[in-house]
């Protein structure tokens, strides 16, 4: 007799097989299949871009960039990992690279720290927390490290490579992010 866990696993395997056949169709140049793939994963890609950038317009542009590049680079997906895991990795890389290109000079020159959340957060209380809003309020480097480590599960070594920083800096930024969150959530 199958347990509920086995049933869920079988369902997931079935869904993943369906997804793989969709990916194969896209590799053959099927635009309709790509639109379907886009619709299936838009929310997950945008969520990651929005958390990394903390800016709706920039996240939308970065999401477009992810799907534009994905169309051309899908051949690189060999099916070794789950598609969603691979897509998260692609999204992180493209989004970070996009942010570097878009904001690099502008922020260096004017030292801007503009996020959508700067003006939208009041002091919080521990029981009633919109973590996404707090994340968007974090300073850029601390936010990116926090999202990649705590939300996406990256190791600090991977983050250091992706963000071109020392491993120690990644850990320090993560610590800083948690300190700020702790303060905003009313724990300090």
């Amino acid at each position, binding site marked *: 007799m199958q347990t509920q866990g086995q049933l869920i696993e079988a369902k997931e395997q079935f869904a993943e097989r369906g997804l793989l056949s969709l990916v194969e169709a896209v590799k053959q140049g099927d635009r309709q299949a790509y639109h379907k793939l886009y619709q299936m994963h838009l929310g997950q890609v945008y969520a990651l871009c929005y958390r990394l950038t903390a800016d709706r317009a920039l996240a939308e542009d970065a999401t477009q960039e992810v799907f534009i590049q994905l169309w051309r680079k899908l051949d690189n997906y060999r099916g070794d990992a789950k598609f969603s895991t691979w897509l998260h990795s692609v999204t992180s890389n493209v989004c970070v690279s996009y942010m570097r290109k878009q904001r690099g000079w502008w922020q260096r020159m004017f030292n801007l720290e503009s996020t959508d959340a700067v003006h939208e957060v009041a002091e919080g209380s521990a029981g009633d927390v919109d973590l996404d809003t707090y994340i968007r309020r974090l300073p850029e480097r601390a936010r990116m490290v926090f999202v990649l480590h705590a*939300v996406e599960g990256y190791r600090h070594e991977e983050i250091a490579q992706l963000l071109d920083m020392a491993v120690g800096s990644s850990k320090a930024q993560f610590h800083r992010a948690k300190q700020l969150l702790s303060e905003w959530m009313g724990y300090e």
Partner: protein
Amino acid sequence: MSNKEFEQQLQRNLSALPDDIQPERDLWPGIEHALGQTPENSTQKRATGYWGMAAATATIGLMGWLGLSQLPVTSDAEQLAQVLSQQHQQQKQALLASFDGQPALTDNWQQQVDELDGAAAAIKQALKEDPNNPALLRMLQQVYQQQIDLIERVHAPTWQKI
């Protein structure tokens, strides 16, 4: 409240984060438009590339002169800013004309162009008050370059390596 309580609360909040957030605007038309373009078949892109090259050469000459010489007296510094602005306006208008009718990748690019215009105006105002500041002239040139890059990018997407 203790650090342990915070860690527990944070873990609960992390687990509750939504996997899926939808953007406010429809992103597909921009993506579909870009899928039809390749770096090889975009004559538009080549044409704008020549414009960029010509402008860059002129600007490098101008900025090189800025770097090598003493900053001119007030009226000359203002003239230099004017030349820079005129040159930029010509290049910008030519670019916009070449992309006329072509769909852009983002809806808010005009707003971004306007914001850069605002930044340029602020720098020019600062130059009036501090005309002997070469950093301001360099900033002005960089804002203009940013604007050109933006217009090119939203109309002729480039491909990055994943």
